């Protein structure tokens, strides 16, 4: 009896080890790659924000270069995780890597990030009895998401909307409970206008909001807003444009209230010429001279290791993405990259594989 039990356990142990061995050997073989051939496929993972643009790129790039690109839209955090462990050829993230993340990713050889798409994040609200296109400022939005402004007839909102009839409905902030580039863009913007928001909540694809309701994905947020009188949340530009959500106009540093859209996002990107170390660009602090610039715009990045056996393919693909590939942007509500960013990207690409 006990002998038989021992036998089963031993067999189990052998199987476990076998499975573990299979697991490690398969990841080894994938990281060493097939190499050599001129058209080995590229595998990437990460940002969901860039996914619609990516699917255009995949088909177009495959027909032009005979290089296939496989992309898993698993979220920015997942993309960073996978490129850090080198289980993919490139990662994509809506937030630039933090210093710590760079350190971890560089442990297996240096990586670099290149901005390759440009979009915006749009607040949306549902308040019965309130006018369409309410005007809001960054300070007011920060106050709302910090739980300091709690009703729609708050003097701060009334001041921005003189003459508008505002109900006393309680404000319910709605945020993304999963990680999202929109959360990054939104918190980056609110942190730049409100020191209190920066210290209490901070900037990330996932943060802890002190109040409100969390919902999953853009459609979850839209549903939560639609179902709750007094709700305000934020969604991606492409999603906002195609939905029937009521969008407030957000004040920019020039004191204007531009409509969210490809043109205003483009104007924001054109106003910022400073490209930080690691090609990091923040569009949260726009100069007062930036006319018509949409205040909650954001870049999304590709992350590539400099040492890779697929250097040629990788270079071709990123070059394609930041040049030709940009032409597919506007129809999907992505703004084209400004010239100086394309130039910086091209310079960064030369480092791959050298």
């Amino acid at each position, binding site marked *: 009896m006990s002998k038989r039990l021992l036998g089963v356990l031993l067999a189990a142990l052998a199987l476990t080890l076998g499975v573990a061995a299979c697991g490690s050997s398969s990841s080894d073989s994938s990281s060493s790659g097939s190499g050599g051939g001129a058209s080995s496929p590229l595998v990437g993972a990460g940002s969901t924000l860039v996914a619609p643009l990516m699917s255009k790129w995949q088909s177009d790039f495959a027909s032009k270069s005979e290089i296939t690109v496989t992309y898993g839209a698993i979220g920015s*955090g997942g993309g960073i995780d996978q490129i850090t462990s080198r289980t993919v050829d490139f990662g994509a993230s809506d937030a630039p890597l933090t210093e710590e993340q760079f350190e971890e990713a560089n442990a297996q050889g240096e990586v670099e990030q290149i901005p390759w798409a440009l979009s915006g994040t749009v607040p949306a609200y549902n308040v019965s009895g309130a006018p369409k296109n309410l005007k809001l400022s960054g300070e007011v939005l920060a106050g709302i998401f910090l739980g300091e402004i709690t009703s729609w007839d708050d003097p701060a909102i009334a001041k921005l909307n003189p003459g508008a009839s505002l109900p006393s409905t309680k404000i319910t902030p709605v945020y993304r409970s999963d990680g999202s580039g929109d959360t990054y863009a939104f918190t980056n913007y609110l942190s730049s206008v409100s020191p209190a928001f920066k210290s209490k909540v901070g900037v990330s*694809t996932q943060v802890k909001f002190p109040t409100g309701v969390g919902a*999953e994905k853009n459609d979850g947020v839209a549903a939560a807003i639609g179902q709750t009188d007094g709700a305000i949340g934020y969604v991606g530009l492409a999603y906002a444009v195609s939905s029937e959500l009521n969008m407030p106009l957000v004040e920019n540093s020039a004191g204007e209230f531009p409509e969210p859209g490809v043109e205003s996002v483009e104007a924001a990107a054109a106003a910022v010429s400073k490209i930080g170390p690691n090609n990091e660009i923040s569009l949260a602090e726009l100069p007062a001279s930036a006319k018509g610039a949409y205040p909650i715009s954001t870049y999304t990045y590709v992350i590539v290791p400099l040492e890779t056996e697929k250097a040629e393919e990788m270079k071709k693909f990123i070059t394609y993405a930041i040049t030709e590939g940009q032409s597919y942007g506007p129809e999907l509500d992505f703004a084209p990259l400004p010239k100086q960013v394309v130039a910086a990207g091209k310079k960064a690409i030369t480092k791959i594989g050298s």
Partner: protein
Amino acid sequence: MEAGALSNPVLRARRNLTDRIGDPLLRGLSGLAAALAVAVIVGIVYEVIHLAWPAIQRFGIGFLTTNDWNPNPLVQRFGAAPFLYGTVVTSLIAILFAAPLSIAISIYLTELAPERVRRPVATLVDMLAAIPTVILGLWGILVLGPFMRDTIEPALNSVLGFVPIFGGDPSAFGYLTAAVILTIMATPIITSVTREVFETVPGDLKEASYALGATRWEMVRQVVLPYSRPGIVGATILGLGRAIGEAIAVAQVIGGAYLINASLFHTGGTLAAQIASQFQNSAGLQKASLAYLGLILLVFAVIVNVIARVIVQRGGIKDIDVTETEAAAL
């Protein structure tokens, strides 16, 4: 006996090849299947602990009581308390509703309903379990949530508002909405098992009870329920397991807050829902912390299972005593 037959050289020679390898083959294959099941469990536990290791090292056992979940890369402070609390509260409420409801449905279906009603009703209850959880969650967002916020929660609040768990503003998203969704999920599971159990109650016992002048209610109370007690407990635990482990639908309606909130109307989180909504898009310490939540969920499930086994075993023995004493008294 088999061995004896085989040891006879004449009989042995008459057997063809398939007959001779049949026995060892059966033993080998079934042993392998058993080993595979054990290997899968061992492998999963190993993998979860391995994945959670950085978080276990960083936060230790204090992870269980830390009432915070802050994924901001500059803070990175994680704790399981909000989700442990949410899991316990939502699944307990769900079972509190689902168990009596399911027992009532089963009694109706096995003892009271006319024959032509039983089948269709039983099938419909079973079909509740076939609704994809995502659809149920969507229904939770669009229909149940607003109904809870506008009708149920204000009513609870006006009568029982002095109790902290019924205080606070009504909300479409929160613990209570999630608990109702879980009730709907657990009910068909508990019902189908209790129904089966009630059907195994021997007709003799029921007849005897009626013969002694018991009313239908007395018969159910004195014969069906005591006889089925271990089965009812088992079914309830099965439903509880479902409620504890459900991720998607809960994530859709609970509102994803990262703190313990006293009010049942308030948004919160559960272990499974938190893992489902954040794991894909996580890296580093957050990923490890989510795996740590998974480990806690695993341990939680094992504990519930063990408790169920203990109750079923004890209950079984006690039942015999009870029926015997009752029989003696009668």
